[in-house]
């Protein structure tokens, strides 16, 4: 529709003129009215949904910057007058939170690396080879996104417990990797699909082994996609709640469950501090996402939606 939204929509292209000629002015006027109406509808949708989408984000910011006195008054002040950064400085002084943050960084980073390595091999195999059982494996990977985590956790807890792995980074990394892998595999398969087979043939003619072809020819070409997959895995690991809250105790716990145990009190929650902490937790994800957006949207539409 972009072509019809210019300021003089009725100047028309040649094709339009010939097509509308018999209908004359009535039809043109109708189309103009139609266009105006759809513009109004579009803007109202954007405004209403925009309010729903953005006001909570505004409130997150406003609360994080408010003093406790201002936060606990009712009805709330929609525009905070008493702005303070105390809630953020309080975070920096909370050693327990810092240790959660370090755990999050460690676990999410290892998850990202492991996911990419495993998914690269698997995605390459799915993309460039044709063999029996390939489709079933691909379906298994796809379907594994849909196994209920709450159920898996129950027996996974027992498994990790019997191996003495509860409350270790290993348990968190292994469980995170499994649910980050499916999308990583599909993203990377999509990227390998775009690398021409002729390139692999050339490498083989030059005497490169299959491993060498993968590591020295294909991997560098796929590097941007591998970084995107890694960022995605990092974000999933960073955001996870259910596995982290169950498989790790205080020493190894990551930020999301850490925030619950720190701030959600029996009687009174420290809302301004919790909102400040929430902002801090969201920042790495938002930054990662800015880099990722293009790949993620592309990966999602290629991996699961193809029409």
């Amino acid at each position, binding site marked *: 529709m972009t072509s019809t*939204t210019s300021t003089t929509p009725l100047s028309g292209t040649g094709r339009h003129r010939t097509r509308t000629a018999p209908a004359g002015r009535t039809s043109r006027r109708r189309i103009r009215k139609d266009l105006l109406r759809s513009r109004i509808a579009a803007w109202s949708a954007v405004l209403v949904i925009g309010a729903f989408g953005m006001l909570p984000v505004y*409130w997150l910011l406003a609360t994080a910057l408010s003093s406790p006195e201002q936060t606990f008054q009712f009805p709330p002040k929609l525009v905070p007058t008493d702005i303070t950064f105390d809630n953020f400085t309080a975070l920096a002084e909370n050693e327990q939170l810092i240790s959660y943050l370090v755990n999050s960084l460690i676990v999410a980073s290892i998850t990202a690396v492991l996911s990419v390595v495993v998914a690269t091999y698997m995605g390459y195999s799915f993309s460039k080879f044709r063999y029996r059982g390939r489709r079933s494996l691909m379906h298994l990977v796809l*379907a*594994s996104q849909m196994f209920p985590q709450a159920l898996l956790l129950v027996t996974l807890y027992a498994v990790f417990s019997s191996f003495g792995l509860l409350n270790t980074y290993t348990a968190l990394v292994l469980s995170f990797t499994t649910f980050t892998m499916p999308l990583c595999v599909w993203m990377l398969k999509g990227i390998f699909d775009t690398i021409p*087979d002729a390139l692999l043939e050339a490498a083989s003619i030059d005497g490169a082994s*299959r491993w060498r072809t993968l590591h020295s020819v294909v991997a560098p070409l796929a590097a941007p996609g591998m970084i995107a997959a890694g960022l995605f895995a990092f974000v999933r690991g960073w955001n996870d709640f259910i596995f982290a809250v169950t498989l790790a105790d205080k020493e190894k716990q990551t930020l999301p469950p850490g925030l619950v145990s720190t701030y959600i009190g029996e009687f009174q929650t420290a809302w301004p501090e919790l909102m400040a902490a929430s902002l801090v937790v969201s920042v790495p994800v938002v930054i990662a996402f800015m880099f990722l957006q293009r790949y993620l949207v592309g990966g999602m539409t290629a991996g699961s939606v193809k*029409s």
Partner: protein
Amino acid sequence: MSTAAPPHKAAPPRTAPARRGRLGGRLSNGAFALLLTAPGLALFATIIIYPLVSALFTGFFKQDLRLPGREFVGLENFAHWLDGDFLTILEQTMVFTVGATIVPFVIGFALALALNSGLKGSGFLRGLFLFPWVIPGVVISFLWMWIFNANYGVLNGILMKAGIIEESVSWLGQPGTAMLAVIITKTWASFPWMMVMLLAGLQTVPKELHEAAAMDGAGAVRRFFAVTWPQVRGVASIVLLLEFIWNFQHFDTIYVLTGGGPAGATETFATAVYQTAFKGFDIGRATALGGLWMLLLLLLVVVYIRITERKGDAR
């Protein structure tokens, strides 16, 4: 990444060409390809397949999560649920799942249509609207917990100022509104994702089709059903199905916001299984309910694979 198949895929070679080098050099191409999938499969086997299979058996035993050893009790654990709360939990899970799928779909679709109609700055708006979807799930739960707060919450504040309610409502604290609050929160978290997917689908609709239909005198509604809908139906059905499957097993938002309460009003399969195992330590009963839940989920997954398959996706 485009929707069209890359040209070289038109006639894929049976195997990638490769000279037999050192490492894995004596392997056939098929064996080499399987070797590449081995690390991933090993992970799947230990972290997904084994726990799942083991869960299916555990349902027939009486077992405490904290203690080793178990006692075979046959169908007792299943009977416990089927004679008890199963239908309530199923009903509540369905209310949550349907609500948290349909509402964000309608919102996401409306927004996708608006952004696709050539608004100025729609690229920027798309990025902005993605924000709720990007921030961590736990943060989303905290934020809405605060918004819904009975004593100081901004929602009560605004509704009272507007004269819609007389006194503060305990949104999360009473059975009548808790489910609604949970659905609103989940809607906020997922409408951006649906918007992106549907927008991607809408952008494949040729503009000429719309123009031609308009020239032929079709109104906006008519054009939507005659031109737009047939083109995005595929994307829409997958988006709806995926979201349905995810919501059917959703845990975080409900657990943090209400913990399944008040008085079990937001109890779903996910929270019930979790609470039975980790608060009640009864893993026999937890996995029995999990088994029933999996049966229902399996049907959905089969439908999903059928649909992706038909799209020629799993080449």
